[in-house]
């Protein structure tokens, strides 16, 4: 129904994000909701905390999706880049007294630089072998964080201050208005990237690298760009995370965090920006949901809350397996199908 009477006269119109007035008003509504959301429930700090963590996870998962979903270079070292971002920012603000915004940007670039280094072998090795090399990078990073005590504080970790001049970012609300604009900006960048020359080139590398090279895609260049952008996003996410929780230790960046990010992009949809957002929210929200339900059930069955820790892992695993089996395109794929259904409604085709 929505496609009727939509005529485009230029190619520019055809590649616009907001093609119709309908879409424009939806985005305006969403935007208003984002601004009003924290104001509407000022008392509920916990919800705001979860939202902020979701925002940070969205940045990280878009980053990983650019590399693993779009370019097809599977990485399980994503937690290392988050840690590098967080520690860089912490060290810059605490020891060297950098103002927070500059530290945030620098930590993104430091992570990107190390991402380039990790990306170098991707020219020679593919698939599982590359996966192992990213894993090795993770353990090297962790080793450095734990053992370079003078810089990182070792296992006790390091305090992270968040000050811009004399203004201190100390509440969830202030952080909400810091994180959300960054999320929006980086999402827009990723979306544009994906629908223009470099994004197409990265997808070409994922699907057929030989054909990509014969039409002029420099494999080395675009793999490197993908690694760089991916770790830049992770660096920014890590830095925001560090500043938000205020004290970071190597334990905040366990190996399972990399797997969790991989789960986000699989559940959300590989190679899709919208999928990364859905996936991040899903993976963060599901454990909270399980917690709420078991909390609620504990009034009726007191034993349940005791078994919660085991249950969480099981349900988490089940969800990922069922996504792989029933919806390989992830939540973003499901979203497209729902949209097509309503577009054609009430006809079947």
């Amino acid at each position: 129904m929505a496609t009727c009477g939509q005529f485009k006269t230029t190619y520019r119109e055809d590649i616009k994000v907001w093609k119709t007035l309908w879409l424009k008003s939806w985005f305006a509504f969403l935007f208003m909701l984002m601004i009003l959301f924290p104001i509407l429930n000022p008392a509920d700090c916990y919800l705001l905390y979860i939202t902020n963590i979701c925002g940070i996870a969205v940045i990280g998962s878009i980053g990983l999706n650019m590399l693993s979903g779009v370019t097809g270079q599977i990485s399980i070292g994503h937690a290392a880049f988050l840690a590098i971002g967080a520690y860089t920012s912490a060290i810059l603000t605490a020891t060297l007294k950098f103002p927070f915004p500059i530290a945030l940007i620098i930590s993104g670039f430091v992570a990107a630089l190390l991402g380039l280094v990790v990306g170098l072998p991707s020219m020679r090795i593919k698939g599982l072998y590359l996966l192992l090399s990213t894993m090795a990078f993770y353990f090297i990073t962790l080793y450095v964080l734990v053992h370079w005590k003078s810089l990182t504080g070792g296992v006790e970790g390091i305090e992270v201050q968040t000050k811009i001049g004399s203004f201190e970012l100390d509440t969830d609300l202030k952080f909400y208005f810091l994180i959300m604009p960054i999320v929006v900006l980086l999402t827009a960048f990723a979306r544009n990237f994906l629908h223009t020359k470099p994004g197409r080139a990265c997808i070409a590398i994922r699907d057929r690298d030989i054909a990509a090279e014969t039409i002029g895609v420099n494999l080395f260049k675009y793999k490197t760009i993908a690694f760089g952008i991916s770790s830049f996003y992770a660096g920014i996410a890590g830095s925001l995370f560090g500043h938000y929780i205020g004290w970071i230790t190597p334990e905040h960046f366990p190996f399972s965090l990399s797997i969790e990010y991989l789960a986000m992009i699989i559940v959300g949809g590989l190679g899709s920006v919208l999928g990364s957002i859905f996936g991040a929210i899903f993976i963060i929200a599901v454990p909270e949901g399980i917690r709420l339900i078991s909390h609620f059930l504990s009034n009726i069955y007191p034993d349940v809350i005791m078994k919660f820790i085991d249950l969480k892992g099981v349900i988490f695993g089940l969800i990922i397996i069922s996504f792989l089996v029933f919806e390989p395109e992830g939540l973003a794929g499901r979203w497209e199908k729902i949209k097509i259904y309503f577009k054609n409604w009430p006809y079947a085709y």
Partner: protein
Amino acid sequence: MMLEIESLWLNFGGITALSDINFSIEEGKISSIIGPNGAGKTCLFNCITGIYKTRMGSIRFLGRELVGLKPYQISKLKIARTFQNVELFNKLTVLDNLLLGRHNSIKSSFLMSGIFWGKACSEETENRRRVEEVIDFLEMEKWSKHIVGNLPYGIQKRTELGRALSMNPKLLLIDEVSSGMNAEETEDMSRFILDIKEEMGITIILVEHDMRVIMDISDWIMVLDFGKKIADGPPEEVKKDPMVIRSYLGG
């Protein structure tokens, strides 16, 4: 001469895939390479486009040496190709596949593309115009926004030709255009190939098994057998060559 190949050898371990190949391709003609399975036809294409590295011999395109260049560097000299088994980017639409053919013509950096400002934006629409011309030419408007992996084989083959054409090539290498297609689709493709030569003035090298197609549209034919050239010349001559009849055409 547009493409000159001199004493080209290609070895895989102990196996010689191509031995001492010499030939040259004239500009504006359709030249065909035929031969039995495993004769080295596709190997030759892979050598020209830089996928296989040769140790001996030289391949010169408009006076420039291609041996030693990487595939993406060779594509910048405007040599395009299609593949024997369709090598499309299956998750993308026909339009995006063809836009990928414009990769070399879009100059803006990845940062500008991400911000989508100024030149990055205008380049996208300019190149879209060229791609739409190719889509019109190949009569595939109907499929332009479909995901290419879901389309019938014949359309996929045509998309691959379209992707090569959107590179605005000077030399087009077409590998097995009629494999897996029915008579009608093959005829369509032959017509497109003739149109490409006549309307766009693109030089074409064809690898093909369908003798009817070959004899109808080629200006020049080279026959390979076990990596060796056994004959070349205009179709009428090659058809009568005793060596060719024995090794390929049959009695």
